């Protein structure tokens, strides 16, 4: 077997099995919070999705990719939806999600894709970037008494920034590459994906820890008489 093929296989397996770290951490930390459950389910679902990817017939590849993008988007959006308290932002997220799903369906029905559903993936990346931005915006608006990296969603955001940032261009340009080039650069996606999974795992250390405690001012007892 070619050296590059071996490396590719190794990377692929690292990516697939690294997802299992999320359900494992869920059981190790015994954290029953909603976000921990979401991350554990996310890890399990994507581990299975990637594991069975090569067994899927080529004619169903489009549907698989659409499902993959949809599930990825749903998990990421859920994580931010529950961690953003601003009602307007949440409404915006719901509206954008509805638009995204509609767009995905239209794209699936009307357009053909060769390797990847590049356009929906690109739109998904931009939307998740927007949610990350909204999360940071909200965090910076309120006065917190703890550092932002004590918030588990910060680690999720960092993971996603690396993942989406690292794989954005390869997803967008996927159809422009030759098979050889695509195989060669697909490592980028594997690296970004693995970094994301490990950063998601880091977030387990902070799930459930209070980070929203706001300072309260006390007034001394004054009514003397």
């Amino acid at each position, binding site marked *: 077997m070619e050296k590059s093929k071996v490396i590719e296989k190794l990377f692929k397996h690292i990516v697939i099995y690294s997802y299992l770290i999320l359900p494992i951490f869920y059981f190790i930390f015994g954290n029953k919070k909603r976000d921990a459950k979401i991350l554990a389910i996310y890890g399990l679902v994507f581990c299975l999705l990637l594991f069975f990817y090569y067994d899927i017939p080529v004619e169903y590849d489009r549907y698989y990719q659409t499902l993959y993008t949809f599930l990825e988007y749903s998990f990421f959006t859920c994580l931010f939806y529950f961690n953003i308290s601003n009602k307007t932002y949440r409404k915006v997220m719901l509206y954008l999600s509805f638009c995204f799903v509609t767009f995905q369906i239209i794209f699936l029905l009307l357009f053909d894709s060769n390797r990847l559903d590049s356009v929906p993936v690109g739109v998904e990346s931009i939307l998740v970037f927007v949610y990350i931005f909204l999360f*940071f915006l909200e965090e910076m608006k309120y006065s917190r008494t703890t550092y932002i990296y004590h918030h588990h969603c910060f680690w999720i955001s960092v993971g996603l920034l690396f993942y989406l940032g690292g794989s954005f261009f390869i997803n967008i340009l996927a159809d422009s590459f030759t098979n050889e080039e695509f195989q060669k650069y697909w490592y980028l996606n594997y690296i970004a994906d693995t970094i994301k999974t490990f950063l998601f795992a880091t977030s387990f250390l902070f799930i459930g820890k209070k980070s929203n405690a706001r300072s309260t001012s006390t007034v001394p007892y004054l009514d003397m008489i």
Partner: protein
Amino acid sequence: MYFLQTTTSGVSTVLFLGTLGMVVLTVSLIVFIIFHQRKVLRYQSRLQHMEQEQQKILLNASIKLQEEERQRLAADLHDDAGPLLATARLYLNENLVNQDKATQLQSIFQARQIIDDTIQLVRNISHSLMPPTLKNFGLESAINDLFQKISGSGTINASSRFHEYKDRLKGEKELIIFRIVQELINNILKHSSASFIHLTQNVHADKFYLRIHHDGRGIIQSDFDKLNKSNVGLGLKNISSRLRVVHGNINFEKDISQTYYKVTIELPKDEPYQ
């Protein structure tokens, strides 16, 4: 690097530069957020520390004032009520039964006079603690009463006017405002050598306003803030503390005509007094 060595097409360059740019942007964003938040937290902690210091000063002022008030009460009772009652007791001693009827009547009359004086004294002390007019008739009557008494002394012309006070504020709020007004008037009488004091009240856009004008020596907002942070000016600290309780503001200023000083108290108007 592997990618650089093998990149031949323009697409690969776009991919490489784009990905690199995205990663750099990501790292920059994270670094910016962390540093910005650390800066904000440091600033908040400094502010919190300053606020705690300020509260400590206010608390000390309140305690000191409370102690002064207790001392005044103790002095009033010990120096005035005590001797009066002791004198009354002297008139009503055991020898009274051995004396003739006229002397007995005389002694009883004297003792009664002294007891009446004592009752009046206790009433005055009680009124100074909690004016009955305020409790029974509200802030407007209590302030009018206070100003009439000041004016009645003949040394200063004091007047007050309430423009819109049909709905009374809550009892505890009225008491706090009354104490603030008392403290301000006390300061004006003590330090300003004013020839007139005038108080006006009004309501505007869910806010309750009280304004005191006087033509004596006064202070402006910067003086007030300075005194509030220093160890002197217990009365002013007490005003600040009381205003915090009712979420109110106070503003000291000199009139544009430069002839008199204005003190404006502003607080949110609450539901009508039940």
